[in-house]
């Protein structure tokens, strides 16, 4: 569906994209993760024909994004991070406007607008001015506006920022429905749980390059760690925690009274840790064995937290 080859883009002396290669299949729910300034937005802007790349190509369903921009624009729907809507128009009028802009005939646009409002559970507010909507409701209209022309690809840039849990849940449901209908979704977010829950495949971009790409399981394997030992102590002193960290591994993460230890072999590493803790006179409240989260994979791959 989408093929990105050797994509490069610089702004002055800053290399925003340094040779991105990526292939996304039809109906895939693809999460694009990266810290701020990693190149996510530039990739999306090139994909949506807003920017011209310095090198490389992007094809959508066989159409070159640069050479056949008009066709590609019809295939893509973009839900931007900003609430790019007109607050002085009603929800229905907003959808009508965006629909008509994509060349949908008036009657058809009216039908689709009502369908979209129904899908996002906003049909009872269709004639209310957008400025009277809550943040979550506006977000839903924002996504509906991106889907009004029934694109095959939906690009979503942080679509749930500032959204209440109820609206967020509703958005997840609709997105799952879109994915089940064969719509390809490219999703960028800072919420790791969203990516874990929604995305069938994840690409991690940093310094303008895709440094890892695959399913969550593949990323776990790629990052080299599959499990995390988390030991919670009672009344432990920071010095004692630091001593344990030095004795076991520099990669041990300490937070409050917890020690997190990434390992590929729990059976081998857990007993010595418990034994040494007992030697130091530490009381262990509980021990848990967790799979590595996307957050820790991201951290281990980029050396940065997502919001850095």
């Amino acid at each position, binding site marked *: 569906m989408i093929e990105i080859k050797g994509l490069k883009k610089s702004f002055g002396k800053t290399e925003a994209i340094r040779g991105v290669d990526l292939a996304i299949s039809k109906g895939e729910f693809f999460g694009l993760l990266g810290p701020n300034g990693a190149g996510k937005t530039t990739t999306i802007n090139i994909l949506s024909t807003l*920017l011209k790349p310095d090198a490389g190509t992007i094809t959508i369903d066989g159409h070159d994004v640069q050479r056949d921009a008009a066709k590609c624009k019809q295939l893509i729907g973009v839900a931007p991070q900003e609430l*790019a809507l*007109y607050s002085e128009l009603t929800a229905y009028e907003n959808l009508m*406007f*965006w629909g008509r802009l994509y060349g949908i005939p008036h009657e058809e646009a009216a039908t689709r607008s009502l369908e979209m409002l129904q899908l996002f559970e906003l049909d009872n507010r269709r004639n209310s001015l957008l400025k009277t909507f809550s943040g979550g409701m506006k977000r839903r209209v924002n996504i509906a506006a991106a889907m009004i022309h029934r694109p095959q690809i939906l690009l979503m840039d942080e679509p749930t920022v500032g959204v209440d849990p109820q609206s967020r849940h509703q958005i997840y449901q609709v997105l799952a429905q879109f994915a089940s209908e064969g719509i390809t979704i490219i999703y960028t977010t800072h919420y790791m749980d969203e990516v874990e829950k929604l995305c069938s495949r994840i690409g991690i971009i940093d310094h303008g390059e895709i440094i890892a790409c695959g399913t969550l399981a593949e990323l776990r394997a790629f990052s080299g760690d599959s499990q995390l030992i988390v030991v919670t102590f009672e009344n432990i002193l920071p010095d004692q925690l630091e001593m344990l960290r030095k004795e076991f591994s520099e990669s041990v993460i300490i937070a409050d009274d917890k020690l997190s230890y990434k390992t590929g072999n729990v059976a081998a590493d857990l007993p010595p840790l418990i034994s040494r803790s007992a030697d130091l006179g530490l009381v262990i409240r509980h021990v848990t064995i967790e799979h590595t989260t996307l957050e820790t994979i991201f951290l281990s791959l980029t050396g940065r937290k997502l919001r850095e």
Partner: protein
Amino acid sequence: MIKIALKDIRIFLRDIKGLLLSFLLPIVLISLFGLAFGGLASNSAKDRPANIYVADLDSSTASIQIIQKLDSLDEIALTHIAFEAGKENVMSGNKLAMLVFYQGFADSLENGGAEPVELFYDDARELEASLIQYALISNLMEIMGSQSIRKKILKSVNQRFPDIDSITLADITHEIDLQFSPASNEEDTLAVATTIGPQIGSLKVSPLARKKSIDWALIQSFAGTAVMMLLFGVAAIGSSLLGEREEGTLKRLLYAPMNPLQILFGKMLYSMLLATVQLIVMLTFTVWVLGLEINGNLFYAFLLIITTAYACASFGVFIASISGSRKQSEGLATIVILIMSAIGGSMIPLFFMPAFMQKMAVVTINYWSIQGFFDVLGRNAGFMDIALSLAMLVLIGTAMTVVSAILFRKHIYKVA
């Protein structure tokens, strides 16, 4: 493009304050300016005070020389015309005034009699006529020279004091020579001429009643105010383009399958439609409520409305395209509009301004639009008479549109 314009119209119609500002405020201002100009003098006009006709019925060397000298002056421009035709034109409001040199002018000048010179003027433009009257008297005095005045004074002395002795007469003659010698300053000469004006060197002035009444004050207040208010209105629309950029909707518009310039032209189309409706409403109000009598062709008036709206709409997007933000655009627009309105004749009628300011005015939209409305509404001008105004408005508008389009394309990448 049309969809973007329709969307903006829909949003505009929901904005009650915007509606009031766009329609009610200009109407109030037109009424106030109309009253102000009307109270000052019930006239106002296009022509510079000294742009008048001359009818030389004497056709003598003296009259030809004086006409040439008057015409060579910066403040007076003369156009030769036959007496009856000139009178007809002044009465029709096509020209402010006509200077007539009657037969026998040269003889009177030589004999020291009252020269048969007369200034006919449009009585509806009394203020302008009084300015030209003053300019003509002072210049005629200077051109006709001291010889004529000396003769007139001596003739006057002889008539009043027929028994005067030759020594006293010689003293008076000497004193007159001193007063009118080249060394004597201009102020003194003018003072003498003014003091003894009714008897010698005076200019007979005759107002000519209009065939049809033209309220120049109302045309001035309508055209001047309308253009100024339109400019403020379209500048706000132009800056809404920057608002779209700031709010992210511009980026979303760019995702849609259309040429980015359609966004710019969509805004312009909306501006133009709104400006056209505003002008029609303001003109209708001026005609129906304030009582302006239209003496011209309504189709030409419509052409002028369209071209004015086009130039103003281009101005709106031009200001937006050279500004970095909405606030910057609003600030810049206010300054430019006030300057254009001041020098272009929206605030003060052009004939009040010095010549250099009148020359500067030609770079403004206000100037060409106001001139056009004077021609169409007051003078029953033909197409060729307003062609220059129409062409200049289209030219200014197109130049600004081209620059805006280039800058807008450049800014798209900043949006992305």
